[in-house]
């Protein structure tokens, strides 16, 4: 069985998180700077669920105030690659 904690790319993590809310979502066609909510017709509850799952899968804690930074694919990549350091 694959080690569930093996490092996955931000794209893989996001695809997994998105898939639970919008099974038909396909990240390969998305403009990295397009808001995910628009690309996949997600409302505020959906976006929240996606970020919550992303937090869970990535192990990176996402404070609520950082949520706007994760609104696009580019934003997710940047945030998960270089998560803000703890003080």
């Amino acid at each position: 069985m694959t080690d569930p904690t093996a490092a996955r790319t931000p794209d893989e993590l996001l695809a997994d998180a998105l898939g639970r809310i919008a099974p038909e979502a396909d990240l390969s066609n998305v403009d990295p700077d397009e808001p995910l909510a628009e690309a996949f017709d997600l409302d505020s509850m959906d976006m929240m669920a996606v970020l919550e799952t992303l937090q869970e899968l990535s192990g990176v804690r996402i404070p609520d105030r950082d949520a706007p930074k994760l609104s696009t694919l580019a934003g997710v990549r940047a945030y998960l690659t270089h998560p803000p350091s703890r003080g």
Partner: protein
Amino acid sequence: MAEFRMPSLGADMDEGTVLEWRVAPGDTVHRGQIVALVETEKADIEVEVFTDGVVQELVVPVGQKVPVGTVLALIAEPGAEAAAAVAAPPPPAPAQAPSPAVTPAGRAHPPVRSPLVRHLAEERHLDLEAVSGSGPGGTVTRDDVERAAARSPRRPKISPRARRLAAEGQPAPTATPQRAESRAPGVAMRQAVGRVMAKAKREIPHYYLSMPIDLRAALDWLDARNANRSVADRVLPTALLLHAVAQAVRQHPAMNGTFDAATERHVPSERVDLAVAIALRDGGLIAPVIPDAGSLDLDGVMEALKGLVGRARRSGLRGSDLSPGSLTVTSLGDASPGSAGVAQLFPVITPPQVAAVGIGAIREQPWAVDGLLGVHPVVWISLSADHRVSDGRDGARFLATLDDLLTHPDQLGA
């Protein structure tokens, strides 16, 4: 002996079909345990049992449509001489399965699939429809499932709902991003919604009131409250609005409960069982319930809302989610691409309820405070109410209470 009956899973539901039994005779069940998957016109619902005991008999087989109230199964409650009386497990499928029979309605019975086989298929992540059965009449046996599992790589499960939509000719969800208007609700869902709405408009004399409410204080309060929480613990404005509605309704019982057409009287409800209208991704509308919302705090409302939306979207709603509501709230608050969102929404009351609350989009608007003009986040909240139960003045007072709660959010709890 307890009778497990087909529950009513919505105002529109008269009958349902058991799609899957999740238990078999001889199984011990507990209160709240999911025992069956029932198909209604709107959705496939996981149905719970509300007694402890041992399953004696599954009275209604898979695939048979029965009216609400029909006895589906018999459960021996603890203390009865149950265990010894349970019939021996049915003989292995090949010995007893009949060839497909034709029901009076003229449709062939699906091949017999025991709950055990279904469980096994689920565990192995197999689509049972695609497994060929080697038993008589195409019955799928345990061995068939094990062989299929060994052969095929892990496949995605196809929900009964997706299968039904495919049968109706609806396009299956594709891999490309979709816009809402390209997903059409199934015919059955459309008709179910339509029937209830038509009845509501025919029978309930609606009156409508609407009020703009300044949410500057409420949203600032909520932002401060959310600031140090993770995204998982964030409380959304929608939850705050639902919480405020539940609290306001407690003070205005004429907006809550049901109307008994036979006696022409309002039947007040002690609890606020808040039905929340949720749009499903493949189209269609369902209104699962937050039971006793009036006694929940803000975090409790948010948790309940997340649970309902999550289950509704995953086609995993349970029978208890569809217990009758005493009031319905509909929100079209989220803006769609290119639009600021609907300003005012005038809902249709779901019979036999006596009121419904509509919540529009929160929009930045000019707003006067102490003679000075500013820009505030404003939401229009509407009340549709049954004129047999209340008058405009009662409705106006309800909206005034709601306004007071939302403009003084500290009243809404920590």
